[in-house]
């Protein structure tokens, strides 16, 4: 473990500004990334970044200067050229966007590497240090660089705030926006322009190879948590900023570790956490929802079996586990386990090998039976299915029917088909062949 106060160096203005710079870069990447990802332009950002590399080298060869504005200008020129080339290829030939991006990205990157190698070989002594543009080196930023980046980042964010409404509509429903008299070309150009600037701002700190991740990863992570664009943008900015700052901080611990990869690793960590933990869209939440569906279905099946058994046995209320095993077609262990679970929910009582529904359990069971039979009737009378096909689909739907729907079903059956729903009977005839659906059938006693 390192000494935080020591390594943070927060009293050191340079360290402070470098941290602040990478925080800004990350946040800007998150903001623009949200729009880029939703507009399905995220790979465009990747192409842009790779195509920027030859620009950096050429700008240096041309001017001999290593100042950030000069290098960024060069990078922007070739980056934009690359994007235009991709657009030219996709509109003028039959090559699809992914292939076009692949071609342009690699060839520009190749040229960039050749130029960089040339520079390093020929300029002995003044090792240009341009290779930091490959994987990023936040620590190499001087205060002037940070100032340039901060100004650009703020500029980008201000423009996003101004054009937020236009961007939202452009991505969601461009034809509609156009019908209102907005020029799609202009809105799209503004958005692409901002994406270009964002990539260029982050180039030195993150590097051309990985900067696309600073666009994509925070945005995708943020999407897990929310169903609102503005929340997504703010969250992505937060995640991006956090990744940027902590990436810089961590890579500064070992001077030879480039910043870009560390930032990307932090962002990806946050992405994985989001994907797992987010309340509605996250994997765990989904898994929990599925699980609770399964449990509800089992509960319904057991309670229904109790009601059906009671009906068939002249209102006996206590049944042996064996009888339930027979009725449900489950393994004995599952029946016992489910009975124990329902006892904890106060839906059944279990005593010496017998199971009995409580008043509450009986009510729910009766409701389930009623849903099931009404639904079956409805399907049959709608001529959707013949009677011998009914059991399965009814089984799947009944768990989802609400009292409202039931009421409507009853109404329809009474009105249109003259059925006395109070006395709805099992349409399979005597001796219910009730079997729960799915993987839980077969096995045990036929």
């Amino acid at each position, binding site marked *: 473990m390192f000494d935080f106060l020591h390594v943070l160096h927060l009293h050191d203005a340079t360290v402070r500004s470098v941290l602040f710079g990478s925080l800004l870069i990350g946040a800007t990447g998150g903001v623009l990334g949200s729009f880029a990802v939703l507009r399905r332009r995220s790979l465009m950002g990747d192409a842009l970044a790779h195509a920027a590399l030859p620009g950096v080298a050429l700008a240096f060869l041309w001017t001999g200067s290593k100042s950030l504005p000069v290098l960024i200008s060069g990078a922007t020129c070739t980056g934009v050229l690359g994007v235009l080339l991709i657009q030219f290829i996709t509109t003028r030939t039959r090559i699809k966007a992914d292939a076009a991006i692949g071609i342009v990205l690699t060839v520009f990157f190749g040229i960039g590497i050749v130029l960089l190698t040339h520079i390093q070989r020929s300029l002995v002594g003044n090792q240009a240090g341009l290779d930091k543009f490959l994987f990023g080196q936040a620590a190499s930023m001087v205060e002037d660089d940070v100032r340039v980046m901060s100004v650009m980042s703020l500029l980008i964010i201000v423009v996003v705030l101004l054009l937020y409404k236009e961007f939202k509509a452009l991505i969601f429903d461009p*034809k509609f926006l156009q019908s209102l008299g907005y020029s799609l070309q202009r809105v799209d150009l503004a958005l692409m322009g901002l994406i270009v600037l964002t990539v260029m701002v982050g180039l030195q700190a993150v590097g051309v190879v990985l900067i696309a991740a600073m666009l994509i990863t925070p945005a995708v992570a943020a999407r897990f948590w929310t*169903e609102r664009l503005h929340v997504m943008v703010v969250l992505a900015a937060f995640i991006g900023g956090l990744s940027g700052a902590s990436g810089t901080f961590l890579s500064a611990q070992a001077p030879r570790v480039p910043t870009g990869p560390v930032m990307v690793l932090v962002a990806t960590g946050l992405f994985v956490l989001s994907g797992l933990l987010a309340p509605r869209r996250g994997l765990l939440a989904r898994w929990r929802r599925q699980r609770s569906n399964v449990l509800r279905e089992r509960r319904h099946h057991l309670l229904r079996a109790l009601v059906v058994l009671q009906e068939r046995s002249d209102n006996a209320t206590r049944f042996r586990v064996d009888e339930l095993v027979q009725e449900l077609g489950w393994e004995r262990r599952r029946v016992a386990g489910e009975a124990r679970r329902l006892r904890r929910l106060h839906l059944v009582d279990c005593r010496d090998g017998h199971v009995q529904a409580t008043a509450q359990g009986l009510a729910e069971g009766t409701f389930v039976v009623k849903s099931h039979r009404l639904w079956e009737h409805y399907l049959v009378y709608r001529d959707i299915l013949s009677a011998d096909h009914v059991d399965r689909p009814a089984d799947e739907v009944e768990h989802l029917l609400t009292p409202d729907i039931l009421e409507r079903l009853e109404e329809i059956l009474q009105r249109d088909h003259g059925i006395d729903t109070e006395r709805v009977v099992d349409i399979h005839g005597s001796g219910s062949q009730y079997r729960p659906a799915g993987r839980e059938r077969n096995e045990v006693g036929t």
Partner: protein
Amino acid sequence: MTDASRPDGAPQDVEGASRSAGASTGDSINQAADPSTDSPSIQLLPDLDPASIPIRIHDMTIAYHRKPVLWDVDLDVPEGQLVGIVGPNGAGKSTMILAIMNLVPKASGWVRIYGKPYEEMRRIVGYVPQRESVDWDFPISALEVVTMGRFGHVGWIRRPSKQDKQLAHEALEKVGMGEYAHRQISQLSGGQQQRVFLARALAQDAKVYLMDEPFAGVDAATERAIIDILMELRAQGKTILVVHHDLQTVTRYFDWLIMLNMRVVASGPTEEVFNDTTLNKTYGGRLTVLSQAAQAVQDYERGRG
């Protein structure tokens, strides 16, 4: 020919192709306008003041990637009516709606809204795109979608005001979706999504509405609710143009009908133009020569390009 490089080269090609195709097969493309075959089934309103006609289309031809999709459209839509557009797939129904709003390039012809170009009149035109045309998983609430209906009035950079949001909310209430205002749109059923689109158009507070298949994939209750609202709009003197696909409800819903199959087959009061003859012309195989011609043009262009 020199026009391979000219973007406006299409009209010449299109007209040339249409003329030669019509001549060589003897199948008259202008059949509907020919008084000798049957009563004129394209009713124009030449006597009315152009400034009182919500939509007038004159000699319009549209081509996508040089493949013609709508030929020589001449059309008047009368004010204050519920107007249906029917026709088979690929007949150019959606294209016509887009063309009215000048969202697709015209190879020839023009459109006027109350006698003026669309650009001057867009504030009085409301638009409902096809539901499938957008990504319903987009992170946005129903109310935000409806508020977009106000963007035309709000203008660049400025934000929708309180009043705009209020109007959007009222529009949602109107389509019976008030309680879903803050739902994310992917959590709505197909019918509810369609209602949201309708509410957005209502929020535009327009005089002329262009709706692309507002009844597609909705449940019976929603269809009922939508048609009620359309009739209410008509009662307020608004003109509503609806792309429709269910021929069974055509006579019940629409006062005026446009039957389309790459050209206007018939246009007029529904009870006058909706009959076996026009249905045959619209949905029968008689127009294949037009599609063949269109294909030939495209093949030619492709072979050359």
